[in-house]
């Protein structure tokens, strides 16, 4: 009974009070955030700011996937890492910093790259996925998996001074159901030719540009996890894609 009346600890009321008084969040939204599990694929320029704001907001479980180690050339934009962490696995570096910010959260370290072999087992553990990667191959892999496992997906990217954000597979209905939101393959049926794909290493990137995109991913995720049903429907109505998941056949990753 006591637990029902005070569903959060005193420390949690203090920590999350300023966001709980925002209309449309409230105690119910905070509890939904606490019950949510979010997978962040990529602990780089997008994943660093996205994960730090999700940890701040009190998401219950945060998983991070990345096989890379921290390099000096990352530090101008990958703000969760620091100079003393060069050479360390990015996932371990990120989680040690996130734990210091908010120890109330369960963090899962996936210190390997996503592959067709491990993707289903990893994605299946979470409610929502953030694509913070930097290559079309991983973007199709993640999107196709999210379609098959019915997970909403927030995808962002950035290059030079441009950024892009798209909320995919929302709502995440079974493949073929026309009421489901579009997936990455609906929007981009054919992968781009390899020579048109420019990485941040080749094209360059301003830190605050990729930073804004990562924080916006966190915002979309917070909205998706804390929102009431009405808000979700309102967002849905704003989408106007013609194709829906299952129209173009996803690759078989499972």
């Amino acid at each position, binding site marked *: 009974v006591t637990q029902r009346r005070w569903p959060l600890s005193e420390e949690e009321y203090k920590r999350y009070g300023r966001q709980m008084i925002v209309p449309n969040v409230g105690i119910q939204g905070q509890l939904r955030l606490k019950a949510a599990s979010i997978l962040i694929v990529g602990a780089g*320029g997008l994943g660093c700011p996205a994960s730090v704001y999700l940890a701040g907001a009190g998401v219950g479980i945060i998983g991070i996937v990345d096989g890379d180690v921290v390099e000096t050339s990352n530090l101008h934009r990958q703000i969760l890492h620091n100079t003393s962490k060069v050479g360390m696995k990015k996932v371990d570096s990120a989680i040690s910093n996130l734990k210091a910010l908010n120890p109330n959260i369960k963090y899962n370290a996936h210190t390997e790259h996503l592959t067709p072999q491990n993707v289903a087992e990893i994605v299946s553990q979470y409610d929502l996925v953030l694509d913070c990667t930097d290559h079309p191959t991983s973007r199709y892999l993640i999107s196709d998996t999210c379609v098959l496992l019915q997970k909403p997906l927030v995808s962002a990217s950035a290059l030079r001074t441009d950024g*892009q954000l798209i909320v995919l597979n929302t709502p995440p209905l079974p493949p073929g159901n026309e009421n489901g939101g579009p997936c990455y393959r609906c929007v*981009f049926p054919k992968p781009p030719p390899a020579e048109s794909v420019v990485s941040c290493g080749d094209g360059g990137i301003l830190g605050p540009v990729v930073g804004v995109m990562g924080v916006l991913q966190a915002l979309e995720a917070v909205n998706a996890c804390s929102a009431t049903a009405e808000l979700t429907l309102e967002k849905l109505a704003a989408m106007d894609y013609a194709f829906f998941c299952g129209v173009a056949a996803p690759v078989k990753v499972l």
Partner: protein
Amino acid sequence: MESGNTIPIIVEFSGGLEMLFSDERKHKLSVPAKDDQGNAVNIGWLVQHLCQEVMKDSRKEMFVLDGHVRPGILVLINDADWELEGEASYALQPDDNILFVSTLHGG
């Protein structure tokens, strides 16, 4: 080029495509209302026109591949995905805003 009638439109490029078009994101163009065959000009016509007349860069294949806008480029007609508007067959209207966005992959 036949008829004296022209249509004013705005063509925008982003996601790096502007680098193929003299580093200008926004182009105010005046296009003929009819093509050589007397048909209303459509997006398919516009894409060829951009490639042949407006693009100074030699890397045409970064914009058009096999006669179509290359994969990875999103086309928005007045802020709506062109798939809703008939894609390349959409007939241009005065003051249309046509946006070509190349998908970014960096992160």
